[in-house]
């Protein structure tokens, strides 16, 4: 625990992050590839992976499935609030930590709001299998922002007065202008960002509908970004109003069109939550929490992730009616002519 309060960089240091960006090819070139190619190319064992979205909104689910198929060791995962994305990654660790393992998380919240707690998080944390650094939502968002700004730290009010100060690398100083305490949070510069959005061009310029969450900050803070999108469209369409672009191509390394890429979570304009499927997954996790037997959870992974060719097969397994219903539910949230 003491270790947490000492300073060390868990992803890239600010100077390493800058150096990698300076050396990077920033040209506006075609970055389309398969999910498999993207995950093979840009993620390594031991990496700090920044996860986009918020709870079960626009989480990069398709990318996490591909990561699980690939297998990784000793990852650090960073996000503000997340649900199914870390659930899928950490669930893979529950069934076989020689194939997939997470060493550390830096986060504010891991649960599902209306869909309850994360039994995956409870299982791993309560067994002491994860190193945890707790922050708040603004703390994590501001840490990514500092990383995206090329700063080593950013000042904030939260987490003053809380035990987050004790269990994290926060430093509290007396403000040299007001003499009152202020918290300084170390920047987060992940090795790789995984982000799902509504629309992108082949260069990586992308449009986010609904809340931006902290996606742009995570992408711009990271050394590399894998971007999935519901819809791959022409450059001209994406930049028709340049202010709709939330992440510029400069910050993106791989672009993959993956319809339903955040499912069973929600994606504005495309589909609302499939809460039943979230519950089904959690039931399999809880079965292992209860009696230690990984059978049901293993069956879930075999059926939905290891046993499919691609994420498209996973989505197809829901059937047309269910997917249409979730699209229809979302269309009530943002009625518009198509």
């Amino acid at each position: 625990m003491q270790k947490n309060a000492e300073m060390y960089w868990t992803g890239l240091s600010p100077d390493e992050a800058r150096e990698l960006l300076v050396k990077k090819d920033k040209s506006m070139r075609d970055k389309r590839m398969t999910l498999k190619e993207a995950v093979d190319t840009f993620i390594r064992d031991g990496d700090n992976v920044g996860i986009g979205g918020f709870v079960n909104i626009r989480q990069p689910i398709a990318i996490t499935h591909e990561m699980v198929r690939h297998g990784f060791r000793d990852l650090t995962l960073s996000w503000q609030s997340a649900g199914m994305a870390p659930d899928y990654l950490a669930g893979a660790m529950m069934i076989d930590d020689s194939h997939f393992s997470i060493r550390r998380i830096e986060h504010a919240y891991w649960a599902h709001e209306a869909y309850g707690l994360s039994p995956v998080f409870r299982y791993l944390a309560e067994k002491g299998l994860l190193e945890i650094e707790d922050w708040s939502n603004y703390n994590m968002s501001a840490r990514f922002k500092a990383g995206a700004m090329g700063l080593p730290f950013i000042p904030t009010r939260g987490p003053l007065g809380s035990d987050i100060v004790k269990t994290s690398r926060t430093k509290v100083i007396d403000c040299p202008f007001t003499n009152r305490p202020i918290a300084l949070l170390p920047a987060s510069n992940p090795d790789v960002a995984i982000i799902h959005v509504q629309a992108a061009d082949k260069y990586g310029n992308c449009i986010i509908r609904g809340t931006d969450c902290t996606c742009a900050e995570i992408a711009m803070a990271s050394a590399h970004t894998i971007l999935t999108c519901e819809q791959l469209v022409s450059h001209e369409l994406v930049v028709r109003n340049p202010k709709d672009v939330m992440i510029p191509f400069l910050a993106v390394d791989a672009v993959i069109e993956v319809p339903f890429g955040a499912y069973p979570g929600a994606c504005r304009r495309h589909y609302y939550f499939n809460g039943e499927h979230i519950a089904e997954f959690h039931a399999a996790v809880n079965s292992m929490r209860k009696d230690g037997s990984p059978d049901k959870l293993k069956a879930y992974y075999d059926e939905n992730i290891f046993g499919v060719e691609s994420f498209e097969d996973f989505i197809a397994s829901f059937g047309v009616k269910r997917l249409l219903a979730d699209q229809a539910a979302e269309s009530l949230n943002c009625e518009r002519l198509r």
Partner: protein
Amino acid sequence: MTASTDYTAQEIIVVAGAKILEDNKVVFVGTGLPMVASLLAKLTHAPGLIPVFEAGAVGPPLGVGLPLSVGDSKTFTGSSYVKGLNAAFEMTQRGYADFGFIGGAEVDMYGNLNSTMIGDFPDGYQIPKVRLPGSGGASDMAASCERTILIVPHDKRKFNEKLQYVTSPGHLEGSPNARFKAGLQGKGPYRVITTKAILDFDEETKRMRILRTFPGETVESVQEATGFELLVAPDVSTFEPPTMEEVRMIREDIDPHQAFVKRG
């Protein structure tokens, strides 16, 4: 207005929460019951209430229904401004949020909250007895909203002398000006809504104080369910039960699928 006779503990919390909210004020809405309470307030006495959701939405009319998440598509439609989490929290840190609405698994007499872990702290931080979801935005709301409203189910194990982990700072250790000295903003905890009562904080000592008891409860029964000594306001009265119309609105109009307000 006819009083309801079959309201649930969650329903009276929602009604109490709604009534504390003032019209035309800005409320930073946490996930769960605060969303239901804010929507009820907006549909009753506070149509000009301005909800802010931490994922970014500012001032949505919520005409498309109860969000299931503070980042929900339903928080976006018709909003006056939406960026992302940084923008929402920056506004809060600036002073835009009159109220913040937060919950926790454990609270102490100064309104400090724990939503991180149950177990042995600090030694057991990395291997807690029960791992809770974590702060989410609660710690930030506690640090920067002008006033916070706390929701905690009333239970001796949840109202503790000493928290196992302080996730969201309240009046800290209750000393004068403690929040300001710690670099925090805002006046801190304003009301606590439990399953038994509404409580506030003594001006001087910053200690939690019984303000109103829920129907069927007394000052004694509330104290009985509390793990520290409560102060008692001079004029404790009984909070009127929810009306049938309020209960109907919660059950039929606002949360028909029992996303947050469970009936069973």
